[in-house]
């Protein structure tokens, strides 16, 4: 039915991002660019100056004495609950009364200008009773700090027994750093009060329904009074999944209190200080293996720096465990999560959602075995790959039935000339020069679906107006990933009309209710299907109409490139729609989709949490300077599986961008807290994300164009948001190899992440000394 291809902008075609022309000309509107309502007020947060303790007094007299200040909001202004915890644990206040981390929001100043609010916020006199604090995971473990949420254990077989019996056994520890999202557009919200309890909230959020819910919760008003609108974000990456709640709640609180529109936009520093990041992990592993490198047993614990509250730490640490196996079969396995509380900002979702940290821990285990046996880590990887029909049960007891990693790795190994390059590098390193090289090929298998099963639903609202133009709305949010473009392509394909006929509209809780976060890479899988469902409903009515009015059978009706074929008549889409309207055919539909076949029993640690897996692999080559630890990424080759791509250009963009972002996480992006518990890397001057000159100079990126999703996903495509992030694992491992050359690859350098020049140099020095 959807085989015709001569429309502009159908599925499987490269199309530019729907807003590209607006991005480049500065016409794309972000919340701070919206024409401001008259009388707009501005709110600014006041943050705690201690890492742990109690507030003993607050004096706002100097704040309130400022000319343009309207007032100060504190916990006392909250009529509903002073809580924005996304999982209902009631551990995350809007305004803190007990301080859990340095930089925790305590109050907000509302003033006539943002500048006045920002300046006045510094004039508050807050006194505290200070308690000792912990920012580091190792200290949290040592001092038996509480867990913020229930830990998870995944178990299959008897790992302790199998470890006892193992021919070879290694245990070790790996530190994995966190990461700031560094979306270029920081958090922002603008609330406009209306009649009754009504409030319209513009929020830079990936999760409009949750913002709606949280605003209702804090203001003690029903969800129906709140409308949340999101046209686009300037980047999200998970950082705007739950963290937007704070800003939306404060804006709405102030808007209702003063009955004026209120905008809140923290500066970059406060955004980085007061909102959550990727979780840091400390991984302890104990692995048993045979002399050919086959793993027999693994027992590993993943302790995470969760910060002051649970936020999404439960599902994040769960997902770390779900990905510790990556592509490898562990015959006997125990994996445990330890989501520790720390006196740092509560960590949150970030592209990969714990998966990258789990996977990186698993890859360290592979490296350990390879160096212990004196083999290429790739050989160990292959020896442990999941089988296609046997050895294919994960630690969470899901059978993998779409495994294509063998084919991907084989193709990439050839296309990247891996073997010859590795040989040449080993030869190069033999000279023991100051510059050493490393190369690594690492695979990725990433599970697609929210592990919170109820999140795997989506809605869409499609109208065809009687001029034949189409209005598209769905529950997903656009943060740059091209979701709107892809969903519009699906709709164009359904109706067989040009993409230009479809108007993409802002996500709005009044149009599509009860939406899930645009997260877990699921945006186009879920919303594409929901939009297709809406289209099917409308088409069904249109076909019935055509059948009845033209007295033809259904198979004589077809939608073909901006026309409708009815029997031997060809009617333009516009004309057909207009006649349907005149005949009183409903031209609007709400579509819905829920992912089938998935289930997850967390207590038992068993189920099918993932509908399918996305695969990929990368080869990275690096050079390091053994005098200073500085390095560069010389080349990267990637082969990635997006099933049957909805839009190859957008998918390639996700892959390249994900890789470079992952590379930043593993190399130069370092979060650093001082002894007072202050985050000191809170702006681009101190927190270093990759630049153009850091990207791999030679960067070959291909789609596994032969792949097709075995499941009935939207046009057999696969999710692409998160999986490519983990392709960067090969960068860390290539650095590791370069370091290991110092001792002829006899010792695993145990290079931790992020591998800053400092960590690389200290690893080299350690091998020199040891």
């Amino acid at each position: 039915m959807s085989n015709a291809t001569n429309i502009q902008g159908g599925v499987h075609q490269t199309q530019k991002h729907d807003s590209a022309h607006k991005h480049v000309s500065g016409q794309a509107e972000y919340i701070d660019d919206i024409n401001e309502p008259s009388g707009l007020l501005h709110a600014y947060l006041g943050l705690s100056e201690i890492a742990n303790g109690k507030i003993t007094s607050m004096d706002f007299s100097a704040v309130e004495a400022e000319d343009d200040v309207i007032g100060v909001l504190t916990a006392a202004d909250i009529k509903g609950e002073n809580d924005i915890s996304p999982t209902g644990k009631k551990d995350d206040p809007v305004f803190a009364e007990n301080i859990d981390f340095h930089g925790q929001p305590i109050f907000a100043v509302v003033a006539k200008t943002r500048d006045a609010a920002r300046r006045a916020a510094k004039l508050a006199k807050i006194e505290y009773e200070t308690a000792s604090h912990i920012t580091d995971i190792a200290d949290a473990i040592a001092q038996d700090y509480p867990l913020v949420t229930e830990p998870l254990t995944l178990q299959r077989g008897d790992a302790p027994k199998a470890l006892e019996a193992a021919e070879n056994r290694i245990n070790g520890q790996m530190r994995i750093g966190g990461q700031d999202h560094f979306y270029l557009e920081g958090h922002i919200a603008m609330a406009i009060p209306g009649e009754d309890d009504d409030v319209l909230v513009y929020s830079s959020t990936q999760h409009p329904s949750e913002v709606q819910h949280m605003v209702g919760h804090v203001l003690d008003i029903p969800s129906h009074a709140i409308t949340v609108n999101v046209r686009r974000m300037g980047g999200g990456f998970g950082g705007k999944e739950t963290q937007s709640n704070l800003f939306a709640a404060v804006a709405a609180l102030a808007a209702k209190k003063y009955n004026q529109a209120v905008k809140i936009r923290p500066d970059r520093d406060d955004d980085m200080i007061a909102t959550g990041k990727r979780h840091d992990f400390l991984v302890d592993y104990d692995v048993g293996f045979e002399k050919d490198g086959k793993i027999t047993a693994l027992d590993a614990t993943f302790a995470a720096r969760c910060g002051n509250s649970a936020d999404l730490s439960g599902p994040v640490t769960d997902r770390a465990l779900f990905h510790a196996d990556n592509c490898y079969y562990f015959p006997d396995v125990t994996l445990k999560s330890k989501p520790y509380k720390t006196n740092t900002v509560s960590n949150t979702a970030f592209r990969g959602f714990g998966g990258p940290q789990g996977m990186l821990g698993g890859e360290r285990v592979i490296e350990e075995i390879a160096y212990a046996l004196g083999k290429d880590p790739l050989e160990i990887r292959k020896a442990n790959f999941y089988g296609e029909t046997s050895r294919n049960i994960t630690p969470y007891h899901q059978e993998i039935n779409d495994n294509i990693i063998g084919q991907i790795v084989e193709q990439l190994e050839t296309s990247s000339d891996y073997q010859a390059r590795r040989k040449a590098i080993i030869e190069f390193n033999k000279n023991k020069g100051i510059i050493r090289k490393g190369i690594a090929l690492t695979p990725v298998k990433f599970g697609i679906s929210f592990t919170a099963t109820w999140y795997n639903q989506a809605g869409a609202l499609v109208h065809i107006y009687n001029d034949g133009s189409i209005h598209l709305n769905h529950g997903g949010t656009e943060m740059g990933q091209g979701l709107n473009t892809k969903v519009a392509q699906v709709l164009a394909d359904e109706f067989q009309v040009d993409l230009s006929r479809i108007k993409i509209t802002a996500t709005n809780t009044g149009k599509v209710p009860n939406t899930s976060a645009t997260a877990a890479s699921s945006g186009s899988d879920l919303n594409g299907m929901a939009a297709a469902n809406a289209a099917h409903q409308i088409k069904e009515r249109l076909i019935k109409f055509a059948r009845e009015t033209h007295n033809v059978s259904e198979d004589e009706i077809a939608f073909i490139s901006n026309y409708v074929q009815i029997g031997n008549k060809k009617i333009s889409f516009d004309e057909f729609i207009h006649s349907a309207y005149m005949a009183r055919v409903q031209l609007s539909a709400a579509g819905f989709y829920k992912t089938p076949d998935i289930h997850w029993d967390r207590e038992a640690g068993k189920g099918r949490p993932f509908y399918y897996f996305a695969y990929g692999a990368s080869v990275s080559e690096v050079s390091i300077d053994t005098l200073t630890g500085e390095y560069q990424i010389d080349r990267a080759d990637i082969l990635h599986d997006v099933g049957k791509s909805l839009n190859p250009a957008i998918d390639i963009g996700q892959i390249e961008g994900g890789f470079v972002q992952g590379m930043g996480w593993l190399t130069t992006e370092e979060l650093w807290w001082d002894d007072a518990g202050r985050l000191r890397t809170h702006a681009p001057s101190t927190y270093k994300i990759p630049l153009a000159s850091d990207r791999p100079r030679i960067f070959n990126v291909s789609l596994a164009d032969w792949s097709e999703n075995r499941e009935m996903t939207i046009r057999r495509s696969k999710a692409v948001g998160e999986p490519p992030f983990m392709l960067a694992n090969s960068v860390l491992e290539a650095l590791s190899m370069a370091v290991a050359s110092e001792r002829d690859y006899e010792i695993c350098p145990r290079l931790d992440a992020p591998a800053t020049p400092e960590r690389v140099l200290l690893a080299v020095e350690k091998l020199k000394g040891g």
Partner: protein
Amino acid sequence: MAETKDHINFVLNDEAISLSDFPSGLTLLDYIRLNKSLKGTKEGCAEGDCGACTVLVGRHTDDGISYETVNSCIRFMGSLNACHIVTVEHLKGKDGELHPVQQAMVNQHGSQCGFCTPGFVMSLYALWMTTPNPTNMQIERALQGNLCRCTGYEPIIKAAIEVSNSADPVHDKLNTERANMIKQLSAMRNDQRIEIRHNDDLVIIPKDVMDLTHARAEYPNSTIVAGSTDVGLWVTKHMHDISPTIFINHLSELHQIDVQTDGVQIGACVSYTDMQSIISKHFPQMEAFWNRIGGEQVRNMGTVGGNIANGSPIGDTPPALIALGATVTLTSKNGQRTLPLKDFFIEYGKQDRAEGDFVESVYIPFIESDELFAVYKISKRRDEDISALCCAIKMNIENDVMSNVSIAFGGMAGTPMHAVKTEELLEGKSWTLDSIRNAKAGIDLDFSPLTDWRSSKEYRAIAAKNLLERFYIEMTDGLSASQLDREAICEAAE
């Protein structure tokens, strides 16, 4: 007191504007977004590090107009008299069509979330106008001051290449209207002092250097602003009151570069970009290092004079200038004095500057043909990062013996300074790897570095010692064997 003017004049895109009654801390970004409702330019960091706010500033020079990218978030309005400000809105064609640079970005899928995009477009625009057929290295350099979190940069680089093949800047509006603009801006140059009052706040734009000395005498506590790459942050990050503020970057006397027989004298307002050709010609050993100072926007704004005057313990240029034996000239109403740069830095936060003094110029002696010289910057990220440590080494080798050893470090103490003990350990010793290794002990005697977010004290100490070794290896074995060479990879890829 001579007559003063109470407003500045400038051109914003197509509009000639006269502006009075504004505070000294008003940034160009806030002005264009809040006052002029030009919302295409974005605020990403308000500290000149992300480039989302990039616009072009055309300033009147002896050769006409030089259009340069700047970070509008840390550029003050007080520095823009007689300038042409070009924002992304100006790129639109007569019929609303996209500019070739914008079209190339669209064609190459160079935007995802789009928030950094106007800034990238402006940086690519400036590159295309000055360097129509850029190499990969030149593109990377032009984009050092622009962060993108979505794309991984690859499509943006491709857009830079595409536009260099698809369109000729000769036909660009800024070029076709250049002569008119020169006329317009010339008429706006101030032949008298400008003083702008806004409540208690005072902006002073002196007429010339003589007037500057008077202004300094009248307002000894005034803040001098040249490039504002540092002072900008005092305002945007720390909300400091900088008034009364004296803007000096328009003073042509302070832009002089005077090449003399034994060295070069540079005015305090000479930017890193203005210095580029002098560096290439007379200090080629510093060229790679120079390209790693800030990003392109910061190099366009930032001045060597400011880099010295702000007294940073790290400093990009001071370690190199100290090792080269540079001197600094301070001027006040009472006259001039010249002192070795090494003596200017007294301790952290304190420089040898009397009331009313300002840094007028710096003199840098040339490197003699028999002198060896190198400068190294170690940072977490290669480009656009503040160094964890910075090291410059100069010496003579005569009959295989080291002499006139001059080594300076930044990031190792409260000020940039000589590694005196290390120098002593090397002076007069034979030019061998052993001598160098023996002198490493001097680093521990010279410095007790601190641990901070840029690196640990251990790393600073080890790396500092290893840089001595790097110097020896580089001078004896040549660069290629001892240093990462991105350029070679770039060329190989082309």
